[in-house]
C-alpha cells in the first residue's frame, strides 16, 4: 500500500507550550490508523495539524511537513481552505448546523461553496446519507432539523457531511466517545466499510476500539510518538515498555 500521508518532523505549539515534538509517521492509503494515548498527549493536535485546523486556534502554530500525495500541505501558496476539502474531519461532539435540515446538513459542505438545484441536493444528500449508513433511518424526515436526531445519528450525519465534500482522507477526533455502545458499533462498522474508498485516521480513547477497527496504531505520550506499527504488533507485542504499560492499563 502506498503512503497517503507522510508526516515529517512535525512540531506544534499553543503559544509557548509545545504540544507535539518531532513527529514522523506515514499513513498508508485505504487503511484505518488509530491514534491512542492518554488525555493531553497531543492526539487531537496531531490530526488537527494534518488538515491545518490547528492554526485556527489563536496563538497556535506548527512546523514541519505534512505530505499529502507528494504535496506539502504546509507548502507556500497552499490554501488551507482547499486542503481541508481533501481532508475531511469528524469531531468528538456531533456538530450539525442547527439552522439546517438533515438534508441540508448532509450537503452543507457543497452548498456553502457552490449552488446546487433542488434535484442535485436531493440526489447528493441521498448518496452520502447512504454512504454514512444513515439513509434508512432518516429518509422520511429529511426536512427536519439536523439537531432533532439522536447523538449517534447526528454523528453519522456529520460523517455524511464530511464525505459529501469528496475528501480523500477522513480524520476523526474521538468520533464515538460521546455515544452509547450501539451507536459506537455503528460508527465502527461504518469506518470499516469506508476504508475501501478513504484513508482514515481516528483518534480514540478506547483501546478496544483501536484494536477492533484499525490496521495500524500509533501510541502518543506527552506530545511524542512513542511507537507506531501494525495494530496486531502494538497490542500483542509492543517493543516499548511505555506502550505496554499503557495497553495493559498500568497508567493513563
Amino acid at each position, binding site marked *: 500500500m502506498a503512503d497517503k500521508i507522510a508526516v515529517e518532523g512535525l512540531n506544534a505549539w499553543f503559544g509557548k507550550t509545545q504540544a507535539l515534538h518531532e513527529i514522523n509517521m506515514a499513513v498508508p492509503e485505504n487503511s484505518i490508523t488509530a491514534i491512542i494515548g492518554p488525555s493531553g498527549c497531543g492526539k487531537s493536535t496531531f490530526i488537527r495539524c494534518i*488538515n491545518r*485546523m490547528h492554526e*485556527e486556534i*489563536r496563538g497556535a502554530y506548527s512546523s514541519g511537513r505534512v505530505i499529502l500525495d507528494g504535496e506539502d500541505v504546509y507548502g507556500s501558496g497552499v490554501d488551507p*481552505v*482547499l*486542503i*481541508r*476539502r481533501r481532508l*475531511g*474531519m469528524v*469531531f468528538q*461532539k456531533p*456538530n*450539525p*448546523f*442547527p*439552522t439546517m435540515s438533515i438534508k441540508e446538513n448532509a450537503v*452543507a*459542505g457543497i452548498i*456553502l*461553496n457552490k449552488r446546487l438545484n433542488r434535484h442535485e441536493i436531493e440526489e447528493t444528500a441521498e448518496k452520502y446519507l447512504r454512504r454514512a449508513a444513515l439513509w434508512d433511518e432518516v429518509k422520511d424526515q429529511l426536512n427536519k*432539523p439536523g*439537531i*432533532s436526531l439522536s447523538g449517534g445519528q447526528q454523528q453519522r450525519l*456529520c460523517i455524511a*457531511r*464530511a464525505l459529501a*465534500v469528496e475528501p480523500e482522507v477522513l480524520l476523526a477526533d474521538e468520533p464515538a466517545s460521546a455515544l452509547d455502545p450501539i451507536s459506537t458499533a455503528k460508527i465502527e462498522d461504518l469506518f470499516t466499510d469506508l476504508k475501501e474508498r478513504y484513508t482514515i485516521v481516528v483518534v480514540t480513547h478506547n483501546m478496544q476500539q483501536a484494536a477492533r477497527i484499525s490496521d495500524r496504531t500509533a501510541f502518543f505520550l506527552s506530545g511524542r510518538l512513542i511507537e507506531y506499527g501494525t495494530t496486531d504488533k502494538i497490542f500483542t507485542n509492543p517493543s516499548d515498555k511505555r506502550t505496554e504499560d499503557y495497553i495493559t492499563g498500568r497508567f493513563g
Partner: protein
Amino acid sequence: MKTDFRYMRRKVFGTTMLGLSLLAALAAVSMLFWILGYTFIKGVSAVNFDFFTKLPTPVGVPGGGLANSIVGSIIVVGMAALMAIPVGMATAIYLSEYGRGFFASTVRFVSDVLAGVPAIVAGIVAYALVVTRMHRFSAFSGSVSLALLMLPIIIRSSEEIFRTVPDTLREASFALGVPKWKTILSIVLKTASGGLVTGTILAIARVGGEAAPLLFTSFSNSFWNFNPGQPMATLPVDLFNYSISPYQDWQQKAWAAALVLVGMVLILNISARLYLARKGFKRNG
C-alpha cells in the same frame, strides 16, 4: 441548643431579607404599572380614529390628530435604523470574529463610552454635523442623532449574540473547506439571526421614544412632510411641545401622544420577545 438558636436566627434573617427584596421588586414593577395606567387613563379619551388620521388643528379648533408625527416618527426612526444596523452589525462581526488586540479593545471601549453619551449630546453632534451645514432642521439630521444612539446598543448586543454561536460550528464549517467569510455569512449570521433581530428591535424601541436629540434636529412640523431634507414632526417632540403648552386641548393631545408612544414601544418589545420565543421553539422542534 446554641446551634439551634443560630439556625433560627439565620432562618429569620433569611426570610426577612427575602420579604424585603420582594417588596423592592414589587415597588419597581408597580411604578411601571402606575405609569402605564396613568398614561392610559389620561390619554385614552383623546385617542380616536382622528388622532391617527388627521393633521393637528390650530389652538382652539377642536378635533384633529397627530397622524403626521406618527408617520414622522416611523420615518425618522426607520432611517436611523437603516444607518445604524449595517454599520453596527459589521462592527459586531469584526469584534467577535476578527478583532483582537489593541484596535479591537479600543473599538469596544469607544462603543461603551458612546452608549453612555446622553441623548441630548447626540443631538448636538447631529446639529453641528448636519443642521449647521444644511442650514435648516431636517428629518435626516434627526435620524443621524438617533443612529448615533442606536449604534453602540446594536454593536454590543450583536457582539454578545455572535459570541453565543458555538465555536464547534465555525470549526465544522472550516473543516468542510468553507472560507472564513462564507462561514460568517452562512453559519454564524444565520445561527445568530434570532438574537440579532431581537437585539435590533430592542435598540429601535430604545431610541423610538427619544425627544431631546430631535428637538433641534428634526424639529417639528404641523403639516405632512415626507422629505427627509425638511423638518419633520415626531411623536416625542410633539409630546414635549404640547405638554408645555398652556392650552388644555393640546395637553390632552400630549397625553394621547404619550399613550401611543408607549404603546408602540410596548408592541416592539413584545414582538421581539415573541420572535425569539418562536425562533427558539423552532430550533428545538
